[in-house]
C-alpha cells in the first residue's frame, strides 16, 4: 500500500502564547485557571461557572497547594471543568471519572483528588462507580453539578429529571422517578453529604473548604440552572429566573435526613449540610489491615 496524506496545519505556539498574554491574568482567580482557556464554553446564564468559581475560592482559602491537587472529570458540560483548572486535570470517559480518580488517589495518596462531573455522568452511566467508591470510603471529593438533564447532548432526560418534566426525549413529560442524589450518596456510605444551589455560592465555598479538611468520600450536590437544556422546555425562564427560584424556594436544613431532602421542580428545595461523620478511609484500612499484615509476613 502507498499512502497519500494531507499536510495538517501545524500547531501554532506563538498564536497560543499571544492569546494567553491578551486574555490571562486579569482576574484574581486566573491563578487557578488554565492560561488561554477562558472564556469557557458554557452558555450565558449557566450555573456551572459559579460552581467552578466557588471551588476556586474554597481551595484558595484553604491554601491547598495547586500542585498537590488533581481534578478528574467525566463527560458533559460539567465534565469540561477539568479543562479550565490550572492543575493536573484529567478529562476521562463518560461516567468513569470516579474509578480513574480512585487509581490516581491510590497511586498518589498524598494528593487531594477531586471529581467534578454532571448528574448524568455520575449517576446514570457512572452510578455503579459512585456507590462503590462511597462504599469503600475512597478519599475523594465528588462535586456533582445537577442540572436535571443531559446538558451537553442537548437536554435529554436523565436520572434526576423531575417527574412530568419536559425534555427533548420526554416530550410528553417524564414518567420516571428521579434519584435523590444526596440520599443515594449517604446510603452508599459517604462521610460528608451536602446540597446547595449555585445561588448559595458562599455556603458552597464553605462545603468545599470542609471537604479539603476531611478524609473519606465527600459528596456535594449543586443544583444549577441549565437555561438551554432544561429551562427552555420547562418554561423556567433564564438562568437568572432560575437563580431567583433557588433563592426564594430554598430552605436550609442542616442535619436533615437526606431521604427527606426534596428538590422539586416547583416545590421547596432543601439545601444544607446533611451528613458529616467519621469513618476510616479505604487507604487507612488498607494500610493498617493489609499492608501491615503482608509486610509482617
Amino acid at each position, binding site marked *: 500500500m502507498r499512502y497519500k496524506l494531507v499536510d495538517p496545519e501545524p500547531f501554532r505556539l506563538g498564536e497560543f502564547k499571544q492569546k494567553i498574554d491578551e486574555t490571562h491574568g*486579569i*482576574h*484574581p*482567580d*486566573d491563578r487557578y*485557571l488554565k492560561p488561554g482557556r*477562558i*472564556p*469557557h464554553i*458554557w*452558555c*450565558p*446564564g*449557566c*450555573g*456551572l*461557572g*459559579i460552581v*467552578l*468559581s*466557588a471551588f476556586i*475560592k474554597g481551595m484558595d482559602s484553604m491554601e491547598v497547594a495547586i500542585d498537590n491537587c488533581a481534578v478528574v472529570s467525566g463527560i458533559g458540560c460539567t465534565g469540561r471543568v477539568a479543562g479550565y483548572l490550572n492543575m493536573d486535570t484529567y478529562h476521562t470517559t463518560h461516567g468513569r471519572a470516579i474509578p480513574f480518580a480512585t487509581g490516581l488517589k491510590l497511586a498518589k495518596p498524598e494528593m487531594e483528588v477531586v471529581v467534578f462531573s454532571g448528574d448524568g455522568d455520575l449517576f446514570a452511566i457512572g452510578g455503579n462507580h459512585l456507590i462503590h467508591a462511597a462504599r469503600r470510603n475512597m478519599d475523594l471529593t465528588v462535586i456533582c453539578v445537577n442540572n436535571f438533564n443531559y446538558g451537553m447532548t442537548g437536554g435529554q432526560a436523565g436520572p434526576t429529571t423531575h417527574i412530568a418534566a419536559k425534555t427533548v426525549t420526554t416530550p410528553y413529560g417524564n414518567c420516571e422517578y428521579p434519584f435523590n442524589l444526596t440520599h443515594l450518596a449517604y446510603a452508599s456510605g459517604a462521610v460528608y453529604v451536602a446540597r446547595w444551589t*449555585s*445561588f*448559595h*455560592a*458562599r*455556603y458552597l*465555598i464553605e462545603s468545599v473548604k470542609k471537604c479539603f479538611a476531611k478524609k473519606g468520600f465527600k459528596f456535594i450536590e449543586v443544583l444549577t440552572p441549565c437555561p438551554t437544556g432544561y429551562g427552555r422546555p420547562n418554561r423556567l425562564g*433564564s*438562568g*437568572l429566573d432560575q*437563580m*431567583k427560584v433557588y*433563592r426564594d424556594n430554598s430552605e436550609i436544613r442542616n442535619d436533615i435526613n437526606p431521604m427527606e431532602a426534596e428538590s422539586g421542580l416547583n416545590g421547596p428545595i432543601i439545601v444544607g449540610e446533611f451528613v458529616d461523620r467519621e469513618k476510616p478511609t479505604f487507604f487507612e484500612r488498607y494500610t493498617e489491615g493489609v499492608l501491615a499484615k503482608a509486610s509482617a509476613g
Partner: protein
Amino acid sequence: MKFWRLPLDAEEQIIPVGRLFIIADRCKGCNFCIEFCPNKVLEASPDFNRKGYHPPVMKPNHECNNCGLCEVICPEFAIYSTVEEKRRFTEVDLVRYEEMSSGEGKGEQE
C-alpha cells in the same frame, strides 16, 4: 435586623469601600451580579461588549463595599473587587440599610 437610630457604636463601625473591576469582554450578560449585589450598586451598561452582551457598570453615586459576592457568583470570571479604603458608618448608610432590610434589595441567602 432593623436599626431605628444610628447605633451607639456607629463611630467605630468601619465600612470598606470597594474598587470594582469589570472585565467587560468576558461578560455574557447573565445579570447575576446586578440582581444579587446586596448593595444594588450595579446596572447593565447600555454599551455592548465584544460578544454582544451588556456588561455591568457601577450606578453613578453608588459605592461598592467589597463584599465579594459578585466575584463568586459571576460564572465568567468577569468581575471582582478590592478594598480601596475604609470609612466610617454614617446616617446615609443607616437609611440604606433600612431600605434593604425592609425587603427592597434583599441580598443573598436570607
